[in-house]
């Protein structure tokens, strides 16, 4: 459809883009990305024929660009700029109708029935029919951009060029516009080449992305290959974190502002134990991975609550009840991780472990009345008891996602070993249990201080976690045994 070969262009003697080559297939949604001043707009204007190129060729639909007359070109290529100025108050319909200009022939440019049908159809597809008689001053920015999109589409182009079409729109209009473009490219074979400002939007919608840097091609591939932390850092000189979209196989990037993080440490003394609950409140949120009732999964939380409930606690909507409990105790449910246990909270085992500058705090409460051997858990029926081992690990360091997961593995292994050493039996299978059926875990880190890439069992952090969890679990179980007077 579009073939750009070794194209250079610029103003006077300064070349803005140099030696650019790429091809766009029919029906493709092709994104052009790059920092300000990288030559995106210049490239687009060269393709649309507004700026002459100094070198190279552009082939459009198998014919060189220069062989098209202005009208012929407008029948093939339409352009939607960032913003279109309008000095006068045209109606929406008049504006869209102007898109038929390249098709009107003769001295008097007769408006045909076909022109009328096309305009009506396109206004319907871009859902602006209801605005047809409104003037451009009366409609919102988002609607205006849709009107100019309709104008461009009324040219019935094979190729649509867009310069940051969503720049001034709110997210619903952004989505709306890009969905429309995607639809046109997939179902009508419209080829779309669009400049994007927003890496995430480009990653979501584009089939391929051309990344420009200082007027040269830096990368040209599928979004997942172009949007790489290293590449983006080089081109944009900004630190980003790449993550997959939660629902789609598309990369998304997160900016990290270069603000100064507040220095603080979590100490053993910060853990507050009462009969009703064990809690920790921090000034700054901690990045937390947990299986708690409230605030499970990854998130940033400032308060951590392990609440005592009676052995026969029963509730249909545990989450709602727990949320109410937090509110009643002046905790913000959106900033809190909440667990529950039937174990006596006074029997908690708390340990602080330090090595060099790295330190962790481990908190374990244990009730083992419904201990389970995971290897034979099929023998158990599904019902929940309140006897639970809750493990909290607070780390004064900065962890990667891998480290979080490894920390959980390490902690689990240490807990299982403690169960083994304390000879806690699964009452159903009469074998040594590996845990209880409702165990919960939490790993929270301050995310500053030492960088910790891994937390496997023999890494520095892994060793500390293993030791802390093992010792605390043993201690908690022993206290539990003493309280209930259980002997081996």
């Amino acid at each position, binding site marked *: 459809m579009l073939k750009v070969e070794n194209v250079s262009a610029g103003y006077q003697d300064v070349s803005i883009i140099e030696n650019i080559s790429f091809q766009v297939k029919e029906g493709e949604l092709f994104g052009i990305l790059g920092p300000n001043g990288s030559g995106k707009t210049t490239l687009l204007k060269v393709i*649309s*024929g*507004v700026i002459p190129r100094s070198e190279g060729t552009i082939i459009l639909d198998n014919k060189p660009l220069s062989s098209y*007359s*202005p*009208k*012929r*070109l*407008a*029948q093939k*290529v*339409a*352009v939607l*700029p960032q913003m*279109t*100025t*309008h*000095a*006068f*108050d*045209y*109606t929406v319909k*008049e504006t869209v109708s*102007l*898109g038929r*200009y*390249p098709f*009107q022939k003769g*001295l*008097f*440019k007769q408006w045909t029935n076909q022109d*009328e049908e096309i305009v*009506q159809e396109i206004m319907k597809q871009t859902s602006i*029919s209801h605005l*047809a*008689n409104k003037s451009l001053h*009366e409609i919102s920015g988002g609607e205006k951009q849709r009107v100019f999109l309709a*104008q*461009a589409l009324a*040219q019935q182009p094979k190729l649509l060029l867009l310069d940051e079409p969503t720049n001034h729109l709110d997210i619903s209009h952004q989505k709306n516009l890009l969905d429309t473009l995607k639809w046109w490219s997939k179902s009508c074979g419209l080829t779309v080449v669009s400049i994007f400002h927003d890496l995430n939007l480009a990653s979501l919608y584009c089939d391929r992305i051309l990344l420009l840097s200082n007027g040269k091609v830096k990368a040209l591939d599928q979004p997942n290959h172009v949007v790489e932390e290293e590449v983006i850092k080089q081109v944009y000189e900004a630190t980003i974190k790449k993550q997959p979209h939660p629902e789609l196989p598309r990369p998304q990037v997160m900016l990290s502002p270069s603000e100064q993080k507040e220095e603080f440490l979590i100490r053993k003394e910060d853990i507050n134990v009462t009969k009703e609950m064990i809690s920790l409140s921090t000034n700054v949120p901690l990045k937390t991975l947990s299986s708690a009732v409230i605030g499970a999964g990854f998130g940033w939380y400032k308060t951590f609550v392990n609440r005592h409930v009676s052995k026969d606690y029963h509730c249909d909507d545990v989450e709602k009840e727990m949320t109410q409990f937090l509110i009643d105790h002046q905790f913000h449910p959106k900033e809190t991780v909440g667990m529950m246990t039937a174990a006596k909270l006074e029997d908690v085992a708390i340990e602080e472990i330090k090595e060099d500058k790295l330190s962790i705090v481990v908190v374990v409460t244990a009730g083992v009345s419904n201990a389970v051997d995971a290897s034979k858990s099929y023998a158990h029926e599904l019902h929940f008891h309140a006897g639970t081992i809750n493990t909290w690990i607070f780390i004064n360091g900065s962890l990667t996602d891998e480290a979080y997961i490894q920390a959980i593995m390490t902690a689990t292994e240490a807990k299982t070993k403690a169960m083994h050493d304390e000879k806690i039996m699964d009452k159903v299978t009469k074998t040594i249990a590996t845990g209880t059926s409702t165990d919960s875990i939490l790993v929270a880190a301050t995310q500053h201080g030492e960088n910790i890439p891994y937390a496997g069992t023999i890494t520095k952090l892994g060793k500390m976690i293993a030791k802390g969890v093992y010792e605390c679990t043993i201690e908690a179980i022993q206290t539990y045994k003493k309280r209930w007077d259980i002997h081996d």
Partner: protein
Amino acid sequence: MRNISIQRSSRINRTIAYLFVTTFFVLSLLVGVSIGTLHIPISSILDVFSHALFQTELSEKTEPMMMNIVLDIRLPRVLLAGLVGASLALAGAAFQGLLQNPLADPYTLGISSGASLGAVFVLFFGIRLPIFGFMTLPLISILTGFLTILSVIIFSRFVERSMKMETIILTGIIMSSFLGSIISLMIALTGEELRQIINWLLGSVSMRGWEYISLFLPFFIVGTLMLLLQGNELNALSFGEEKAHYLGVDVRRKKLSILIAASILTGAAVAVSGTIGFVGLVIPHLNRLIWGPDHRDLLPLSLIFGAGFLILADLVARTIISPTELPIGVITALIGAPIFAFILVRQRIERRG
């Protein structure tokens, strides 16, 4: 169904628009010929017209003197006013569209200053070319007006090859103030011609006769035809040159032809009647407010409306404190401004409500 009814209603609107402005023009023409020191009844005017055009017999009520007044004095004056009004309004509409600025008028690019300079030059030195006689002034004036727009175009092309509209406007403003200051210089140095020069500058269509009309007509026809065919292009250009390019308009060529056509109209109008202000700015604006900005209709509607408007303005100028005549440029603003203000306010209130 809804869409069809809307289309139909807009077609009816258009018909109403053309009917309205045409009626306005015809009435202005008749009233303009009719009223004066000697009142001539409309029936007699029609009688004279039909006598002049189809050689019908004059009725008894029509005195032969009336025929002379109508054909030799009133009609040429009214027609010239109409032609000038039409040209200025049309040129104004085209300039506003081309420059994407509702505040532009035919004088923005300095053509009027050029044409005025020529005229003032002729008056100042009392030049009278042998063959042309008293037509020397309008001829020189048209010539200097045309030279001005040429130099504006050439200079802005020299500044920037692509001739962006902003460059042309800036060049026009430079040219306009430069030539304006030369005119001021001549006014400052002049003695007895002062009144003549000032009167000319304020604009008038009196005592011109058929010669001026025949001088003006060719420019009028060429300029009007060139512009009326560019309605679509002006629509596209009013969204900006770049957008017009994307829509398939051959921007450079169309821009030049619109610029030249509008300049021909303006230059010729200034040459025959002086710098009559307000018409070129407000008539297009007024029509846009009432009928919408679509240049395919805006251009012809402004043309007809402008003609009627200037005929009425001239009528007021010569009758209001008769026998003294007021400069027509004063009247255009005196009548036009309040009407314009009224319509503007009404529109804004409607939009709010």
